[in-house]
């Protein structure tokens, strides 16, 4: 089924007169325990969907904490993750799509900076067009 969703960017005020635009979308993460709606940031530079541990646990995602992978952050530091698969629903107005995507669960200590990142394992299902001058982006399938 074809899908064409258009979203506006979130304006984040960093300081007086300094704003950035963030490509955030509402997503439903479907787990064994429950389905929950979260905002997720789109980031084609990340290889997988990255879920904080508390998010993965809250929906009842199946994963093996003992089977750890090492991943690199942009500054060369490493983090521990474990791979899984997550079912995702994205919807807007009357349009709705469900995908199953590879994901990584971040196993490190929680910090205030973690967020849900939708990386390449989400992008591979879709065409995504960024139109920042017009403050919008489009997700098509």
């Amino acid at each position, binding site marked *: 089924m074809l899908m064409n969703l258009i979203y506006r960017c979130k304006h984040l005020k960093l300081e007086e007169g300094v704003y950035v635009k963030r490509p955030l*979308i509402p997503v439903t993460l479907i787990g064994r325990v429950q389905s929950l*709606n979260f905002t997720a940031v789109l980031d084609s530079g990340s290889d997988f969907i990255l879920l904080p541990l508390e998010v993965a646990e*809250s929906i009842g995602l199946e994963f093996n904490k003992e089977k750890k992978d090492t991943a690199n952050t942009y500054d060369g530091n490493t983090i521990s993750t474990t791979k899984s698969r997550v079912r995702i629903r994205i919807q807007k107005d009357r349009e709705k799509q469900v995908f199953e995507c590879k994901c990584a669960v971040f196993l490190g200590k929680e910090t205030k*900076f973690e967020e849900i990142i939708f990386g390449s394992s989400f992008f591979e299902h879709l065409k995504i067009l960024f139109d920042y001058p017009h403050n919008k982006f489009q997700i098509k399938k």
Partner: protein
Amino acid sequence: MNAIDKNFDYFLKNDFSDVKEGEWIAIYNNNVISHGLNLKKVIFEAKKMAPISKVLLSKIKKTASYL
């Protein structure tokens, strides 16, 4: 407009200046119905006030990110 679209629209329009960076917020019906650092507690409180299937959860960011 469905509940998630409505909550996301509210999320886009607000800067949540009264919520600290790193806190989770639960949005329902143009309100933040619970917030805090512990996601499970935020969900627990939100469930008392709204059907969780119609609640939008987000983590508050106030600084630039370099992912």
